[in-house]
């Protein structure tokens, strides 16, 4: 168990900062057509490798400079927010659906069901994930859909483990025993009694999982199996920037800073949410 900060006041301040970072990112993604000064794909070969505005030869029109085809870096980052955040959130939600269901079943039914699901969790964890994702995407092809599914494979384990452990602790409590005694069917117990009880923990895990999905997605784009190499995703921009790291440092630097800020925001928010929504987990430490 871990927190970034030790005092509650600092941590809520950091939590608000994290939420603010994320809110800005979401707003930017939603308002991309309004904010971005240039179309993200517009090529201007005469303006290739324009450095950021504050450097020598930089121009204010291209605040963060341009890439090897003269495309505006800032605009591509703004548009890339849609892909990176969208894929990250979708993967995290899909992971929540899979992991939540399996975790509920494993924790509630125990025995064989638990053994089977725990086995699945351990098998999933046994694969070095980046390699496994490469393999899957090589076989089933890239594109947003497969990437979301593969990233959900990375995140469902987080949910499943937490939900399983919590349900195991809740299973023997009076309100569940009472519900069972009066004959409430299992499905109803899972959905109406246990799911609300584990929901706060799932929100916390979701915050970290979205961060993890955004990072992994960037790594996959970087390795060339991302959403689409030509679309303005942050990972693909980093991959492109790597080739020009010696001549045009800004091409790789700014997308990376953006990823780091968004992931930092999600992590800070997650830490804060954990204290608010899941005080049990904090006091148990």
């Amino acid at each position, binding site marked *: 168990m871990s927190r970034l900060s030790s005092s509650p006041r600092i941590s809520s301040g950091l939590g608000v900062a994290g939420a603010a970072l994320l809110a800005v990112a979401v707003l930017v993604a939603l308002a991309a057509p309004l904010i971005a000064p240039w179309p993200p794909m517009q090529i201007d070969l005469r303006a290739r490798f324009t450095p950021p505005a504050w450097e020598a030869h930089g121009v204010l029109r291209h605040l963060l400079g341009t890439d090897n085809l003269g495309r505006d870096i800032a605009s591509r980052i703004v548009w890339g927010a849609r892909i990176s955040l969208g894929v990250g959130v979708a993967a995290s939600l899909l992971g929540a659906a899979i992991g939540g269901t399996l975790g509920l079943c494993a924790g509630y039914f125990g025995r064989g069901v638990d053994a089977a699901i725990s086995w699945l969790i351990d098998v999933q964890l046994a694969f*070095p994930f980046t390699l496994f994702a*490469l393999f899957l995407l*090589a076989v089933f092809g890239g594109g947003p859909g497969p990437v979301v599914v593969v990233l959900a494979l990375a995140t469902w384990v987080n949910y499943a483990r937490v939900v399983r452990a919590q349900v195991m602790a809740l299973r023997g409590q009076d309100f569940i025993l009472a519900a069972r005694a009066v004959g409430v069917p299992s499905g109803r117990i899972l959905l109406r009694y246990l799911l609300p009880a584990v929901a706060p923990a799932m929100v916390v895990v979701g915050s970290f999982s979205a961060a993890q999905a955004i990072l992994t997605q960037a790594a996959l784009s970087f390795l*060339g199996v991302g959403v689409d190499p030509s679309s303005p995703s942050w990972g693909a921009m980093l991959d492109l920037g790597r080739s020009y790291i010696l001549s045009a440092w800004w091409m790789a630097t700014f997308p990376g800073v953006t990823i780091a800020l968004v992931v*930092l925001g999600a992590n800070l928010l997650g830490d804060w949410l954990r204290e608010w929504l899941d005080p049990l987990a904090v006091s148990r430490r």
Partner: protein
Amino acid sequence: MSDTTLPSLKPSPRRATSPLRSRALRARVSHALAVLFGVSLLTFLVAHATGDPVTLLLPANAPEATRIALAHHLGLDQPLPVQYGLFLLHALQGDFGRSFLYGQPVAPLVLQTLPATLELAAAAFCIALLVGLPLGVLSASRGGVASAALQLLSMLGLAMPAFWLGLMLVLVFAVQLHLLPVDSSGGVSHLVLPALTLSLLSLARISRLVRSGMQEILDRDFIRTARARGLPEWRVVWVHGLRNVLVPVVTMAGMELGDLLSSAVVVEVVFAWPGIGRLSVEALGARDFPLLQGTVFIAGLGFVLINLLADILCARIDPRIASGATSSGSIAP
């Protein structure tokens, strides 16, 4: 250690041979085997989904008889469970098929590149442990500078993409300051940047785990007893305290090593490090499925073995660990 007040934490050699211990060991080994079975099944099924290898191996105008003969030769006319059995049988003999790209058997190719990856992962792991452990202990017991450094490190380590950090390190140390070489050919100095890059995330996680574990342990009665008996503070913290947080750390270290192998893929590409990560990216580019399959399977095998070792090590450190313990439901990422 004459003054040990640790509650039942002395590993006694007598118990190592007790029936309980060997039963626990058997449970762990069979668990590892079950996981390996899943790993092999999943790898097989995904590889099976790549389609008919015959069409990949033969030219498009090959006669039907040749196709059937080759399919028969490869065992592809058998039912799926039999094919899986054959795959497993071959895998047990170290035969993962031939790489399309290199025209060589897959296993030696992977095993040739594995040492480079292990070297990188081991170096990163050492950095993470040697820095992360003291940092975690210091920030739990002292606070102040160590605590602030830990917070900064963990925020950055958890948020920065490893490959991007690598690029930035190259930019600063190799390009701007000319302190360290960029390429990866031999020598310790070539290992520094890739290993540092790879270690940061693990360093952050290990030190956070140690810190929260220590914070909890330092409130316990036996620590208060040790202090009351006038033991020097360093001894209370570094001997009595640290020993009690080692078990989760070792468990996590096993997971970390697996994570390092996974992240190493990306870091290798950044630094042109000749390991399995670069090999698998090459395989990806050439759509060399047998090579990818072999790499994934061998990496999974390595991970399971490492964790089995970590489990056994934990049982040595803390004899209280009962048999058949399963993964805990930690909410931490």
